């Protein structure tokens, strides 16, 4: 087999593993680990598709650094009031759009299914992740992660990150 193909597969696998770890972290309520999937210098936002398309800057959630990621989690745990729920993330169509040894850019489709206290599960949100992944001492981490969501009507509220 060609070593090139193998290298490409390995890179794909490492990116896929990062996405899977991201999913597992959020779906199993390990929110405190969530900021650790990001590089120290990082950016995260949840952006409505309509603003993205129109070039407008307002996001639903916008964290400009790792401290802000941690503050989101802290506020969810300690301050905010919302109905207890479970998320299940599903991703597909992962595309690596550029890759160097230090940085990878990629995008993927995602869906989040949510279960509330009534025990019913609904499609909560779909969208597209647009990610920049950087090599850190701890391995690949998100330098930037943007969730550009299709489901413009946010049902009730969005508390937990997607």
């Amino acid at each position: 087999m060609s070593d090139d193909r193998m290298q490409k597969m390995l890179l794909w696998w490492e990116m896929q593993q990062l996405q899977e770890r991201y999913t597992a972290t959020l779906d199993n309520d390990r929110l405190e680990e969530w900021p650790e999937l990001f590089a120290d210098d990082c950016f995260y936002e949840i952006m409505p598709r309509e603003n993205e398309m129109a070039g407008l800057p307002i996001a639903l959630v916008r964290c400009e650094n790792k401290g802000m990621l941690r503050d989101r989690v802290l506020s969810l745990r300690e301050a905010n009031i919302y109905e207890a729920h479970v998320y299940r993330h599903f991703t597909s169509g992962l595309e690596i759009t550029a890759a160097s040894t230090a940085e990878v850019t990629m995008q993927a489709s995602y869906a989040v299914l949510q279960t509330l206290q009534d025990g019913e599960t609904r499609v909560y949100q779909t969208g597209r992740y647009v990610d920049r992944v950087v090599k850190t001492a701890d391995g690949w981490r998100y330098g930037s992660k943007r969730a550009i969501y299709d489901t413009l009507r946010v049902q009730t509220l969005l508390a937990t990150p997607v």
Partner: protein
Amino acid sequence: MNIPHQDYRKDSAENLIFPRDDGSRVPYAVFSSPDIYAREQERIFRGPTWSFLGLEAEIPNPGDFKATYVGDTPVVVTRTEDGTLACWVNRCAHRGAMVCRTPRGNTLSHTCVYHQWNYDAHGNLSGVPFSRGMKHMKGMPADFDPSCNGLTKLRVESYKGLLFATFSATVESLFDYIGAEMRPWVDRIFYKPIEYLGCTRQYSKSNWKLYLENVKDPYHASLLHLFHSTFNIARVGMKVRTIADEQYGLHSILTTTRNEENMGDAYKQQNIQTYNESIRLHDPSLLDVRQEYDELITNHIQPIFPQLVIQQIHNTLVARQLLAKGPNNFELIFHYFGYADDDPELRAMRIKQANLVGPSGYISMEDTEATELVQRGTAPDGGRTSVIDMARDAPEQSDSMITERLIRTFWAGYRRLMDLQGAGDER
């Protein structure tokens, strides 16, 4: 069961009774009755009110349009070729199809896809394919008058860049509708050109009036929203102002202004939330405020009945549009904006502070949670009433955060506008 129980399923508008004229007791059926909802469409949204549609900044150029709603009627607001505004019902005069099929766009010519009847930006019928027939084939009848078959037009007016429309031919001008008490506060925010920054949308399984209660309720602010207290953010004592408009009592303004007195002790005395002193924000810059106005108002919450809430919180500026979606749901659209002359740093602050408000806002996300809890609590028992008593003995006290006076005023006005039974009829 000490409290007598009204027959809770007879939720028709005729059977509904407000047991007190001061608005302090509201029968829960107003939040879930289909009959009340239908009456609201007639008496409120098609009645003598002006409904907020959006910002002029969303449709700056000729041909720009936006599809939205007045109550549950789909309408389009657009800027015509000469820069004036027009608003019409989004329903073809021919066989009733929605003409405009996208939420936003730019055109001076709107064509219904079904048979390509064509309308100009004013809603006038400008083209009917084959109207004069073709060869042996007849077209439209002799008595068909295109000028009588345009789209249904609404009156549309703008006040300081805020767009409103009404179905009513008799309601006063928008200027007078907003009224003398409210206008200065609208002016406070809309005193110079704005830049539209985008929108977010939230859908809540609760009645639209629960959201109006919420924005007229200073009492809940520190009790439901625990962000500030949790993070030990020193909030110097606040001066509060609550004003309802004199004419209807349905619009209001609520402001909080920083002063020197520390309210933290008051919380502790009330035992309502104990501080965990160790919790601090990692990045407190989120709460940086740049003073923009003379008075250091940190919260300006101003509902203009029935579809608008103007909001300034710190440096965030938002025009919230409230859309009723049947008795049990509402949609809330947050239109974020800044000023056209914002320096880059201030613009960036507004974008960052958007984290505070909207569907994921640190100090706002609880509001729809609360309105949904009320919806679920009240829907099974429409004959029971709420108890809206805080500061009921001090109806004139307008400098208190511990009050429900704006809510009482609202319900009294709502009952009149809707022509529902009050205490006099009941007793």
